[in-house]
């Protein structure tokens, strides 16, 4: 188990380095004159050259990369070309927003998918068909379209929940919950659909297993057989699918944040992309990949914990 974890961590670290390097190179490809873009059309030639020197853009690519990598390893992701703000600070400000929404979305997806998948597997008939059909719809429709519909109907028209803005958890837990409910719901739909289908399939397989018949022969209640034994056995494959959904949720959050006017890393990345602010974009990508790696590691641990064959050997 320890060796397994160590290998996963090493693989994750390599992944972060590769993605960071690739992103750095990609962002250096841009043909436009960054210093000119920062200062505007009216800036003098010497001012542009000075700015270029200030940003370190007059140095060779390899040197710039080493400089960035060295700083990044020390936990300093540089500062914005345009505003001069520290990237670390921007990420610290925006990350809680995105994580709130994404983790709440994951939580909703986990709960709903187990409920729907179990209902479909146990009830069969029209319940099963309805869940399957809803799952096809849910996986197909992009989250931001769902976000738009929810924002317009529930927030703008009915005024049940705020349409825009974010309230930090520390300021007001209730306000925080209200501000992330709709975005988290929009993100949860696709993840719920995909995971519910997995729960359904895995549960149907498990309920056909010999040991379920034997458990029933012992006179255990349906509740114990289904919810304690069968679901527990169906959990690992469902967890794998849920882990894959996490990446999709972060991607979805980028656009959904814009719909609900949330100042998250999606908004940060988007404005950086529109301006061509490489350090900010780079920082966003690195942090995103680190989070993805960390979450996958956690899910690997959960998977091992759920599977006695991995845990006890």
């Amino acid at each position: 188990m320890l060796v397994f974890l160590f290998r996963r961590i090493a693989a994750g670290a390599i992944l972060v380095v590769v993605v960071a390097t690739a992103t750095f190179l990609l962002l250096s490809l841009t043909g436009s004159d960054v210093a000119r873009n920062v200062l505007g059309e009216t800036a003098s030639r010497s001012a542009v050259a000075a700015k270029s020197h200030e940003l370190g853009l007059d140095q060779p690519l390899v040197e710039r990369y080493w400089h960035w990598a060295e700083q990044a390893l020390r936990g300093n992701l540089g500062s914005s070309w345009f505003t001069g703000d520290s990237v670390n600070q921007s990420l610290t400000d925006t990350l809680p927003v995105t994580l709130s929404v994404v983790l709440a979305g994951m939580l909703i997806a986990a709960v709903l998918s187990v409920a729907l998948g179990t209902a479909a597997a146990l009830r069969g008939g029209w319940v099963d068909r309805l869940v399957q059909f809803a799952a096809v719809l849910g996986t197909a429709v992009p989250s931001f379209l769902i976000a738009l519909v929810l924002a317009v109907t529930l927030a703008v028209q009915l005024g049940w929940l705020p349409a825009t803005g974010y309230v930090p958890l520390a300021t007001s837990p209730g306000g925080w919950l209200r501000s992330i409910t709709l975005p988290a719901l929009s993100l949860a739909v696709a993840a719920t659909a995909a995971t519910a289908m997995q729960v359904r399939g895995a549960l149907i397989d498990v309920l056909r297993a010999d040991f379920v018949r034997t458990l029933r022969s012992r006179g255990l209640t349906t509740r114990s057989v289904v919810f304690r034994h069968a679901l527990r056995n169906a959990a690992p494959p469902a967890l794998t699918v849920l882990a894959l959904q996490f990446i999709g949720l972060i991607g979805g959050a980028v656009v959904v944040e814009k719909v609900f006017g949330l100042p998250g890393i999606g908004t940060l990345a988007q404005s950086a992309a529109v301006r061509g602010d490489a350090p900010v974009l780079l920082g966003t990508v690195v942090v995103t990949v680190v989070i993805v790696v960390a979450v996958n590691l956690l899910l690997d641990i959960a998977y091992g914990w759920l599977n006695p064959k991995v845990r006890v050997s």
Partner: protein
Amino acid sequence: MTDVAQAPAAPGRDRLLRRTLRDPLAVVCLAVLALVIAASLAAPLLTDYAPDHSVLADTLAPMSGAHPLGGDGVGRDVMSRLLYGGRTSLVGGTLAVLVAFAVGGPLGLISGFYRGWFDALAGWAVNVIMAVPAIIVMLVVMAAVSQDLNIAMIVLGVIMAPMVFRLIRASVLAVREELYVDAARVSGLGDARIMRRHVLPVVIAPSVIQATQVFAVAIGIQAGLAFLGLGKASQASWGAMLGDAFTNVYTAPVLLVWPGAAMGLTILASSMLGNAVRDALGTTQPRVTKRPRPVVRTAAGSAVAPAEDRLLTVEGLRVAYGEKTVVDGVSITVERGEVLGLVGESGSGKSQTAFSVLGLLPYEAEVKADQLAFEGKALLSLSLDQLNALRGRGIGYIPQEPMSNLDPCFRIGFQLVEPMRKHLGLSRADARTKALELLARVGIPDPERVFRSYPHQISGGMAQRVLIAGAVSCDPRLLIADEPTTALDVTVQAEVLDLMRSLQQERHMGMILVTHDFGVVADICDRVAVMQKGRIVESAPAGQIFAAPGHDYTRMLLDSTLEGGPARGELLRPGTPLKEVTS
């Protein structure tokens, strides 16, 4: 030669197409897609406005003859933008699909066919690409390379190539496992020929499904990017329309409807078309419904009163799956302390009979009986709770295959303790003590260790002893054992059988022993019922069966067992000359 090779694939594809078209939903999806394509192509005919022509006076103009869908936030014609936006979406989706297949297809083929270092490298690259959310990569690319949505979609194709790669690779691996590829190689066909003749036909249908999904996802992501304000202003797109409409959501919310509906419908049509193709292929998950308890139908009240002191009375038991009757009017009885052998070949209905008593037949089974009574209680009219009170407590069950009958996720101790706590109302500690005693009783040398173990940590013989301990843990009066020794090593078989007999005598339990092995019958049974094709053909005391079998079928079973036991399958064909089977 080539024509011959292509021939088997072509009708398959035709059939698939025809079967897909029989699904009304698929036809609707195709119609929607055709409409979107036609409208986009005919955009210049359907509107006189350029999609980016802005007239200040038409800002948020209402619907009118001049502007059928009104004007948007900066005075552009909504109808025109919708039509030209459709072009952007369709072109973008198509580009992504083409690139994804152009990149992922060949790489998947090579990876699956040759494996080795190339496969390892490609697999690693796929993991890297899939670890970053696509839309964030797109933001980077659009910031660095170009704001053109079409170029973005080409890059998206590369990002989505892993989906295609995985699909093709898996299909190729599956085909490669098939013998005929080896045969083709032996017969001297080149790799390229093998791929074209054997691999390509298999891959086409799943690829169609995958393509519809990539198409749908690409349209969604493109719209997301445009919604975020990326993309060239001259490029009309549904995403940009949504963005513009959203800024005017308080004044003109209706503007959201057109691009939203167009995009939603296109994506749904594409995605559900893929599903329809999958259904037509028949690769959909079987719609098997499983209920916690089979639905049983009780026949009208029987005239025969159940004997109160008799342990089990079965009269006129019928089990059917639709048209197929697997148990046809079986009647058996078991007295207290009596061991009944239920003997027959595979498919004779003996296990189905045993499971009827436990109420453990699959949901689809239809069970009827003139009488099915345990200690005078009619089993078929019990509620699920009443039945559960009886299972384990009144009737114990010993399964055939030990390893698959223990829950792999729970420790053995827990699996023993749980029923005892429910039925006997024992405390955790008392149940634990009793479980350890039971484990020792069934001959497990280190009960403490096995109690703490997971099923994968113990041997098959051990697991069967655990299952026997579980079956008798709540002191049932009747044991039902379904081929309890068949899956065990020969050396363990005798020990397990001894254990069962001693437990049965010690506790004076009645027992139904389902088996095909007359050796087992001779060891332990008081009486024998022989089953063939769902019926009891002979029922007599064990000694009498061996001394003077009354039915040809019994004689045949007896002969075959005593000759050293043929494989179970051999018994399925009564015509087979039995003497030829030797051990």
